[in-house]
């Protein structure tokens, strides 16, 4: 009799022995095959089976005391290795009655098999580009139609003020505008301070720091005020809109509205967009004011009297600049609030979907602001504003 014996003692509860018996590889498994100990014997058991050239493999379970899902998985894997990879035969011997029942639950079922090719066909580059382009186009179309719909609903609400839920609007105005006042003022003040200071340092070399107020007024009122305010709106409120509506969507509350015959556009979107339209111009004015305070501080520290600063700011700044800035702020706020609500309504199911739409609301809000700002810059240039 040819008997090559090889014993492996594992640290954990399981131990394994391999032996050749009459042209047959026998794996003797003993101890407890639970999740911890199976992990320890897994590689050795498979290596023993793969390393042997014998076709018949038996597993002797005389000493096996315990078996759970992990142990069953090991036996299934051994069977698969022997029977499918090598075309051999696989047997289990001397398994205790109660353990055999555990094994019996899955032993008879053939595990589902799928090849990677069928399950996830890899798309070619051209195909993927095509899909992306199609998605992007669809999203763009969706966004355009949504913005159109929001404008239409806002016009309708302004024509029929009775159908607006003003209570919701005022609540939103508070959360969008009043609650963000401190951060708006802080950022405005800092931006005014930093921009004046940095440009004053450069301009001082030419003795031209007197022009800082001119620059600050124009930049803040025409450009930075609306831009920064709307970016803050996107970060603070656009995301909040998306999260709120998204959660309502996940909880079927949006469906409930629809089946009540209430349009989510009018009921959820309109109050938020209206609130942003009311709050953002005011926020922009606060931002501009705070930035002028910052600028004034710099000029005062350079020993210019306050009246020099104010008179220079307001001599150069026309009503058109002021109105143009506020108009921009209105358009930006419409875009940001609209996109936030749109992303919320597009939420799919599940908690992670709410996170996705929140992120997407901020990103697309900021992109929308950037694009619109570019369009405004061009339009204002050609209109001579």
């Amino acid at each position, binding site marked *: 009799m040819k008997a090559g014996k090889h014993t492996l003692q594992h640290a954990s509860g399981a131990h394994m022995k391999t032996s050749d018996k009459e042209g047959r590889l026998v794996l003797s498994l003993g101890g407890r095959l639970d999740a911890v100990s199976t992990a320890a014997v897994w590689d050795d058991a498979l290596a023993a089976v793969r390393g042997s050239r014998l076709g018949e493999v038996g597993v002797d379970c005389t000493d096996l005391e315990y078996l759970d899902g992990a142990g069953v998985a090991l036996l299934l894997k051994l069977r698969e290795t022997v029977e499918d990879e090598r075309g051999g035969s696989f047997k289990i011997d001397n398994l205790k009655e109660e353990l*055999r029942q555990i094994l*019996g639950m899955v032993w008879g079922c053939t595990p589902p098999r799928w090849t990677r090719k069928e399950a996830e066909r890899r798309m070619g580059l051209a195909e993927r580009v095509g899909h992306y382009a199609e998605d992007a186009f669809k999203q763009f179309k969706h966004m355009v139609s949504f913005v159109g719909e929001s404008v239409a609903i806002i016009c309708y609400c302004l024509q029929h003020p009775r159908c607006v839920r003003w209570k919701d609007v005022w609540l939103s105005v508070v959360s969008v505008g009043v609650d963000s006042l401190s951060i708006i003022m802080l950022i405005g003040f800092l931006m005014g301070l930093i921009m004046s200071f940095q440009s004053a340092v450069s301009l001082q070399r030419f003795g031209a720091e007197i022009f800082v107020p001119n620059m600050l007024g124009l930049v803040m009122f025409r450009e930075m005020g609306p831009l920064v305010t709307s970016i803050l709106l996107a970060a603070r409120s656009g995301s909040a809109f998306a999260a709120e509506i998204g959660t309502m969507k996940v909880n*079927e509350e949006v469906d409930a509205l629809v089946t009540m*015959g209430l349009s989510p556009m009018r009921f959820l979107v309109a109050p938020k967009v209206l609130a942003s339209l009311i709050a953002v111009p005011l926020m922009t004015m606060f931002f501009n004011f705070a930035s002028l305070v910052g600028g004034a501080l710099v000029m005062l520290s350079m020993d210019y009297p306050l009246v020099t600063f104010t008179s220079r700011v307001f001599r150069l700044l026309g009503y058109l600049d002021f109105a143009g800035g506020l108009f921009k702020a209105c358009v930006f706020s419409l875009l940001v609030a609209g996109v936030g609500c749109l992303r919320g309504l597009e939420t799919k199911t599940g908690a992670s979907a709410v996170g996705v739409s929140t992120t997407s609301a901020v990103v697309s809000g900021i992109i929308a602001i950037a694009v619109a700002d570019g369009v405004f810059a061009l339009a204002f240039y050609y209109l001579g504003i």
Partner: protein
Amino acid sequence: MNEPAITVRNLTCAYGDFLVIDDISFDVQKGEIFVILGGSGCGKSTLLKHMIGLYEPRQGQILIQGDDIVSSHGRKRDEILRRFGVMYQMGALFGSMSLMSNIMLPLEEFTDLPREAMEIIAKSKLSLVGLEDFVYNMPAQLSGGMKKRAAIARAMALDPGILFLDEPSAGLDPITSAELDELIRTLSRSLGITFVIVSHELASIYSVADRVIMLDKRVKKIVAEGDPRELRDHSDNEFVRHFFHRQAEVRFGADMECPETHKEP
């Protein structure tokens, strides 16, 4: 003979390419408690969501009191939507409003009643479902069963003739579930409301249902229709019998091979 409350004709529902329900037709009579049942994932809730007009069917007609909800839009559709109330699986109460405001919402939007009248209606609907002590509570402060009852109260705010309930007794303890069944029976008997209920709780099906239809995900069609007790005792469809007798489908059958058979001689 009076016309049915709901008529479904040749309805086919699908998500993208995945066919869920294939060409089914049935009627729901006025005043009856009609239960849609079937195993998990067989399209019960999908069918319900098509019937209330949330999803657009691949093809077919859904007539609510004689008017097609699929092809209608605008004001006509709103008018059809107001003929029924819906209780969603998780209640779907508006989380930012108290129970009272939740129920007053449809009244505020669709009626010109004075505020006092709306408050009285809301309170009486809440006491109808046994929640008179929780009028000013927020939905988050309620238990699952209370939310479902509050959702029924909200669905009834405009006194619709039809109520759709999506799994009213799922996840409730036996007592609450029995109370809910009792409520459904009372409402049906005393107010003549037509109920369409999606459920798979056998006990509650026996206690409330006048008539059931059963869907099977393998054939994607109705496999049984009629009185649940009748179906339990006399159906010749194996799946239906298994369902009503709570029997497992054969999974570990003849092909279950115990390793014992490999025992060495």
